[in-house]
């Protein structure tokens, strides 16, 4: 995610001078996309529908919505469940962001699913709209990593069965940069030296893009002691306490301005450019997530995945996103849905199976123990251990755009960095206050 703008808007392609249907588009939704793009390549298998969608959905005892990368995996598991239990299961494939939006709009219209796969940061929207039902995990609570349960809790209730944890980490090309950098300054120095020697085009592949990228910049901001929202007594985020312009946030703003001057970061770097630079061996470092592992390895990069070094002295905490299964509040087959999610998906065996087919860092502790010998999985976990759950409260929608604009405008040199950050914070408070 974290290209709120682009991800949301791709939804709108309409023919420019359509004679047919005049411009059609969908409204923007500042966090339409979710925590986790999947490893690509899996998209090549597709669920074989056994029947037309209408009959299928109506006749099925369980309807599941999954995105294109996960529906083949879910399909396989669901088929086994169906055979075991003597029920009919239908897996319908939607774009990841659409799952969230359609659950809200189509659920009440009777067109919704029983179970969806989704990201925890959708909860604010889903709960506010009465689209998901709480899930009683019971004794199973203890089987998952704490951060995963915390992420799927909202107003004191758990709304999903977590299955994968995702966060960004430092990708290092060990051929260009043989040593783990001890600090962010050292990282930048190594990178800039390589650029000077013409061995690299970017010292650090970190995208800003047309709207800024607060998600990927967050570990850096947090290492200055900044954050998005302060935490309430009950562990939830408090929308009234915005932190982006606290002391650390302003130090972060000044640091960005410094990196602009030293040409360590550029506002013109897009995700495409960052990815291409790292995967073609033209950048020693990249801040990115598990979704890019396959491509980097496939491109022949000697890859090390490590925690992000601190720029401001405090730990560089990335946002942690948790993927999981949720049950629709409008589910027609709630009992089957509960059986499937709690007693089938929630077992170590199936959890391991999910891991094997998707290689996403598992949320179930026992499964994680089995797979942590993989240095890449361990690297992401090490980076994420100090992370904090991506805020799921609706107020987060107001943050992405302006926070991103502030970072981008500072990197473009549009003015005093402190002033730019404060202006963004004012606008965000204004929106949340409405």
């Amino acid at each position: 995610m974290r290209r709120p703008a682009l991800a949301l808007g791709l939804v709108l392609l309409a023919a420019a001078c359509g004679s047919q249907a005049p411009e059609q588009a969908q409204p923007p939704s500042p966090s339409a996309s979710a925590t986790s793009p999947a490893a690509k390549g899996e998209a090549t298998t597709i669920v074989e529908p056994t029947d037309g969608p209408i009959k299928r959905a109506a006749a099925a005892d369980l309807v599941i919505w999954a995105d294109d990368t996960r529906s083949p995996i879910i399909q396989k598991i669901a088929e086994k469940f169906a055979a075991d239990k003597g029920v009919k299961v239908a897996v319908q494939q939607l774009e990841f962001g659409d799952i969230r939006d359609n659950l809200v709009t189509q659920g009440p219209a009777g067109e919704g699913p029983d179970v969806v796969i989704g990201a925890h940061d959708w909860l604010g929207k889903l709960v506010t709209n009465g689209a998901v039902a709480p899930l009683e995990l019971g004794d199973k609570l203890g089987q998952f990593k704490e951060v995963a349960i915390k992420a799927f809790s909202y107003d004191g209730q758990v709304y999903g069965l977590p299955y994968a944890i995702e966060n960004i980490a430092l990708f290092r090309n060990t051929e260009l940069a043989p040593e783990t950098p001890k600090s962010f300054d050292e990282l930048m120095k190594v990178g800039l030296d390589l650029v000077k020697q013409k061995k690299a085009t970017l010292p650090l592949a970190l995208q800003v893009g047309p709207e800024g990228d607060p998600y990927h910049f967050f570990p850096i901001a947090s290492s200055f002691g900044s954050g998005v929202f302060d935490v309430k007594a009950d562990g939830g985020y408090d929308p009234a306490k915005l932190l982006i312009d606290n002391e650390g946030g302003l130090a972060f703003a000044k640091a960005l301005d410094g990196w602009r001057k030293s040409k360590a970061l550029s506002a013109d770097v897009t995700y495409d450019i960052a990815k291409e630079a790292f995967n073609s061996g033209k950048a020693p470092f990249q801040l990115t997530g598990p979704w890019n592992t396959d491509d980097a390895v496939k491109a022949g990069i000697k890859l090390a995945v490590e925690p992000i070094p601190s720029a401001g002295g405090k730990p560089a905490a990335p946002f942690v996103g948790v993927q999981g299964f949720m049950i629709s509040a409008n589910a027609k087959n709630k009992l089957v849905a509960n059986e499937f999610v709690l007693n089938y998906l929630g077992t170590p065996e199936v959890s391991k199976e999910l891991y094997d087919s998707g290689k996403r860092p598992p949320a179930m502790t026992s499964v994680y123990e089995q797979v942590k010998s993989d240095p890449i999985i361990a690297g992401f976990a090490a980076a994420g251990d100090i992370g904090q759950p991506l805020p799921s409260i609706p107020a987060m929608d107001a943050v992405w755009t302006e926070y991103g604009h502030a970072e981008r405008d500072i990197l473009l040199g549009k003015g005093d960095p402190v002033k730019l950050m404060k202006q963004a914070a004012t606008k965000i408070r204004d929106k949340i206050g409405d």
Partner: protein
Amino acid sequence: MTDLARSGQRLGSLAGKLLLVGLVNALAVYGLVATYAVRDWGIFAVILVATAAVDYVYFSRRTLASRYLLPGLIFLLIFQVYVVIYTAYAGFTNVGDGHNLDKPRALQHILAVSEKRVPGSPPYKVQVLAGPDDRLHLLATGPDGRTTLDGRPATGVPADHRVLPFRDLVGRQQEVLALRVPLQDGSLRTEDGSTGYIAKPTLRYADDTLTDTVTGTVYRATERGYFESADGKVLTPGWKEVVGLDNYVRAFTDERLRAPLLSVFAWTFAFAALSVLTTFALGLLLALTLNREGLRGRGIYRSLLVLPYAVPSFLSALVWTGMLNQSFGFVNHGLLGGADIPWLNDATLAKVSVLLVNLWLGFPYMFLICTGALQAVPAEVNEAARIDGAGPWQLFRRVTLPLLLVSTGPLLVASFAFNFNNFTVIYFVTGGGPNIPDAPITLGSTDLLISAVYKVAFGGAGREWGFACAMSTIIFLVVAAISAAGFRRTRALEETYS
């Protein structure tokens, strides 16, 4: 033509008409039966009215024009006019995040969620049994190993009861989910048919209020579409509520919106007008240039010029964004040999860039339209003018252009309106940016009225559909007024022509 042949022809066309109208009526009867079966009176009425209209129009003698208009009109009314009315109506409601359900449904959901597991209560192993009368019962084994049937001590499955297998539970799941066995701290219930928990409602509903059973807080249903406590705390979800003119009032009274939206209006107007002008000029130029018999490769030129229109527009818009990237783009580094022009980073240049990309996206459409319309310009008119000694420019200015504008004029007006609301191109090329940090709302230099409005309506904490719909309606009224004025000019043209 002989009289016989003529009457044969009449008979033939009458038979054809009967057949078609008969078919429509047959389908309509099917539709009426199907909608009656599910008691969908809305669609029932639409089918009834449409069929009656068809029958009247095709059998009355005074409805010649309507016969040709009706088919398209039916589609237009159902799929476009209805949509417009629906959107305009939504502008009078608070529909949006938190208000997507109707009230009974919202209440039902709040109550369902409020039934919470008693903290610290243990899980029970449960089995669902069917009694001799086929009623359902819950056999539960607590953590202490004691077994109860519907709360009364039991030793196992009674002889006249049977354990329902999962397959049977599926068919009766609403009954299973509704089972409640009262125990001392709450009621035992099961959500999966195999595990039970003691749960207790934490809210009580009476007289349109909800009362928290623990704290005693009272939430009243308010006109805002929420159950709201005295200190302003709300329960989610809320529901859809008609809020009258609230959205419109806000559009005109919010100080933060007024100044930015007025300045955006000027740019929006300029963008739309310049887009029409540039695409039409280039399209027409190319149509005229290539509309010459004997020009070799004419077909190839034309086919390739259509390509920009045949590729998904958001893909090419993204490619343009990449090409115009200041530090890495092809335009600066490939074409201009290392220039450092801030195509999309500078407020003014970004406007130029957006117009350029829109020209690229839009000129093939105008090219096709003009090529088609040019075929209607009679050769004699050109001949006559040439004999009168008119030069090529005068010929174009005095003869070709006016004739072309007769048929393309309304399209240019439509194109103006389309570009006035051209969310797509702005969205993909600049996202409205570059950002204006000093603006009181989230706003970029290339934002159009429509994209600015959507940033306001959807950019905050939650999407405000109702407000977006109201703003859309206001924008519509503005564009419609401008366009209607433009359209009057095409009327003058039409009359000159005929």
